Structures are given as C-alpha cells and as structure tokens.
C-alpha cells in the first residue's frame, strides 16, 4: 500500500519575539490535500505558527527561530532557500480582505506579472475566478476597482489572487473574521472545493467553523501545540483536559 507523503513536516520549532517565546517545541506532520484548522485563544501562537510556514515573520525585527520546517522535502529556513520561491509555493489569505487598489484583473494577475508572465492572462483570470467562485459576480467588471466589491467578494478575490500564483499550499489566517455569516459560508464551501487541489491550513477563532471545514485540528495554548489530530476526535472526545475546556467554552 502506498504511504501518504507528508507535505509539511515541522520538528522542534521554537519561535521568539525578542525574549518572548511565542512557539514552544512544535512538531507536526501534515498530509497533502487536507484541511487543517488551528484553534486556541488569542495570543496562543497559532497565527505566528502559520506565518512561520511562508516566512512572513521575517518582516518583523528581532525574531529568532530554531527547529526544522520542511515543505515539499525542503528545509525552508536553509540559507539557500529562496523566500520569493517559497511564497509562490505557499500562498496566504489574511484576516482582513486586502485587495490592492487596482482593478480586479490587475489584482489576480499580480503574482504572474511579478514572475514575468504577460501572456494568457485572460484565460488565467477566468480560470482562477471560476475556481474562487467569483466569476459570475465579477466577469462583467474585471476592469473595475477591486475595492468596489463587497467584503466577502473581496476576500474571495484575495483567495483568487493567491491561487493565481499557483501555490500548492494555502494559509488562511482567520479569513472570515471580518465577514458576515453568508459570506463566511461561501468561503467555507469554496474551501471544500479547493481541497482537491490544495493543502489548506486555516487559523480560526470560530470552533464551529473548525469542526465544519477541517479534516484535522490543532489546539494551541500559550505557544504550545497541546493536541493535534482528527477533527472528529478533537471535537468529540479530546485527550487533553485543556482542549476539552476550550472547545466546550470554559475559557478563551
């Protein structure tokens, strides 16, 4: 029988903001084409963890990291790792929709254009918008400002923009926290359809959302990964008392 190769392999990861240790000895492996949710109270390190995977934390002064993060079998903190290449491979969607103040078309073609691709952009935009479930709403106003879209549409545009870079992995940092319930549901549906092609990691404060969308769930508390495993199990009979307290709403 074929063994499932893991796409993300984290071992003994420690992360510091100056003297403050934000992540403590994190180890986990993720399979491709699954959705993994990370839950935990504010400041527990789940967003920090997500940002170690595309090295967005590099932008902050005074951070230090040790341990190993392998993506597609490559150590992404190795000195010869090309961060630009890594970020093309590992896309990210942020908490607040942050389209550029450009047209819808220019937003989606941003990553390909930065790579030097200037041909076949029309096809790419159509394909990507269909994938992001935004084609029907946007096809007649591709030249209109991305800022003319509603919040939920903007977030789907940001997902489309990330997909256009042709990543294998998609990091979503509380992608629905600024959206209304209907828009949230559309994003969740979208995630299910994207699962066939992409490995998705989502940070969320919404436990129902984590339970609804994810195959696996990790629970962070004070920088530690307390429990990680099958979502069904985590949300029905977790091993750790602290996980149970958190998901039943006793704190956090």
């Amino acid at each position, binding site marked *: 029988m074929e063994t499932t190769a893991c796409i993300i392999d984290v071992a003994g990861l420690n992360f510091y903001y100056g003297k403050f240790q934000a992540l403590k000895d994190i180890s986990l492996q993720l399979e491709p084409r699954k959705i993994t949710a990370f839950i935990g109270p504010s400041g527990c390190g789940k967003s920090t963890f997500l940002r170690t995977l595309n090295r967005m934390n590099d932008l902050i002064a005074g951070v230090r990291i040790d341990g190993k993060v392998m993506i597609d079998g490559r150590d992404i903190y190795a000195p010869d790792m090309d961060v630009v290449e890594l970020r093309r491979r590992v896309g990210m969607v942020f908490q607040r929709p942050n389209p550029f103040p450009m047209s819808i078309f220019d937003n989606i073609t941003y*990553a390909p254009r930065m790579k030097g691709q200037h041909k076949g952009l029309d096809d790419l935009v159509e394909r990507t918008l269909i994938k992001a479930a935004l084609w029907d709403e946007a096809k007649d106003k591709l030249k209109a400002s991305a800022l003319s879209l509603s919040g939920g549409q903007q977030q789907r545009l940001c997902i489309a923009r990330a997909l256009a870079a042709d990543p294998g992995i998609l990091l979503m940092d509380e992608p629905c926290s600024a959206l209304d319930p209907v828009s949230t549901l559309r994003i969740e549906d979208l995630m299910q359809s994207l699962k066939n092609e992409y490995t998705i990691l989502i940070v969320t404060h919404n436990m129902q959302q984590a339970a609804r969308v994810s195959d696996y769930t990790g629970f962070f508390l004070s920088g530690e990964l307390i429990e990680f495993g099958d979502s069904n199990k985590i949300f029905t009979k977790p091993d750790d008392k602290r996980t149970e307290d958190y998901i039943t709403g006793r704190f956090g």
Partner: protein
Amino acid sequence: MRPRGAGEWLAYGLLYLSIILVTLPVAAVLFIVISRGYSAISWEFLTAMPRMGMRAGGIFPAIMGTLLLVLGTVAIALPLGVMAAIYLSEYASRGRLNRLIHLAIVNLAGVPSVVYGLFGLGAFVLFLKLGVSLLAGCLTLALMILPVIITASEEALQAVPQSFREASLALGATRWKTIWNVVLPSALPGILTGAILGVGRAAGETAPILFTAAAFFLPRLPKSIFDQVMALPYHLYIIATQVPNISQSVQYGTALVLVGLVLLVNASAIVLRSYIRRRRSW
C-alpha cells in the same frame, strides 16, 4: 452649532479673531500687490526683454530663469529625495543610525537659506568649478528643498497600509517590486505634496541663488545650464533697491508675476495630485 454662555462666547470670539488675524495679512499682501501691480501687466511685460536699465520693457528672462531654476531643482531633488525616503522608510532598520539621519534631515530643514547660498558658492561654483550658473543654482536650491521632499515622502510611504506590503510579499513579489508596484503608487499623492511645498520655496527664495545663479542684468535667455540666469525674486530685489527712478507699478508688477507664478505652479501640482488620487481610489 451656536455657542452658549459667556465663556463659550469668549472662546469662540478669540478663535474667530485669530483666524481673521491670520488671514488678514495674506489678503492685504495680495490686495496691495494686485492693486498696485496690475497696471504694469501687459503682453510686452511678460514676453519682452527689459530695456532702459530695467525701467521699461518686460521681465521675460527673469520669468524664464525662475521657471528653469524650479524645473531643474525638482528634477534633481525629487528623485534623490524619494529614493532617500524609500531607503529610510522601507529598508533602514529603526536603529540609532536611522534616528541620527532623521535628526540631520530635520536640522537641514532649519538651516537659513543664505547659508545654503554660501555653501553653493563654495561647493558648486568654486570647488566644482561650475561657475555662477543655472546648474549651480539648481543644485543649491535642490539641497535646500531636499529635507521637505524627504520628510513628506517618508510620511507618505509610512501611511501606505502594511497590509498592501504583506499581500504583495506573500504573493512572492520581491521587496523592490512590492515598493515599485504597490507602495509607491499609493504614496504618490503625498510625495507630490512634498514636491509642491518644495517648488513654492525654490521659486521664491533669493539667498540661495544670489551667489550661485542669478544675474544682475542679462537681457537674453541662458544658452546652456552653465549660463547665468535672471530670476524673479532677485530681479525684484534689484529693482526695489538698486534702480533709481523706476516706476512703482513695474516693481509691484514683478511681485505680482512672482506670486502668480508660484500660485500657478502650486495649483497645477494640486490638480495633478487630485487627478492621481481620483484615478487610484476609483
């Protein structure tokens, strides 16, 4: 909203008075310059060479001289200032050196303009052997307005939301491509504001060009950037103090042209800025 009670009336009255006191001198200056100068304004005054020891004819070379000085100054100071601001805002770490550089820039802005003039004389005219020339004048003026442009550009860059930078970097754009494609376009209106302020200063200052570029009397246009030029502020100083028996309307007419030119340059830059802003905010 109407004020109530004596204390409120007093505060309102004082604040209102301060506004009048602030705007009154501006209005008075404009009124005097216009009322005494408009009679001198004619097609000949704007387009002809001065005659009869600058008592008659036009001030065309001074107008062109000031325009050329401003143009050259902006061409030097804007790219340099914006690049310096990009370095300070986007690349430099927020350490002691950065603070030191900022302190130096702020101090540079406080240096009296005549000191720039002397520095220009020493550095550009004599040491670099540029002579008293358009180029030396532009370099001196550029030095003077650099702090304004750097400070305004840096503020404009800092005002660009961090989320734009994050989005671009997360899409695999390099730092420079992020700055060029996302950050700079968003900061452009603010950068132009700095340029406008700089232009206003460069057009009106006399001291920096006094020893570096300005000619006392030169009834022709400069032949090259190494030629001297007449300039409106210096010309105004000369006809106000050095030329006897000159009619007052020529003096005020020259002042009116200088004020009008500065306003025109500012206004066109403001129009350009609002056009860019409109186009970008859709």
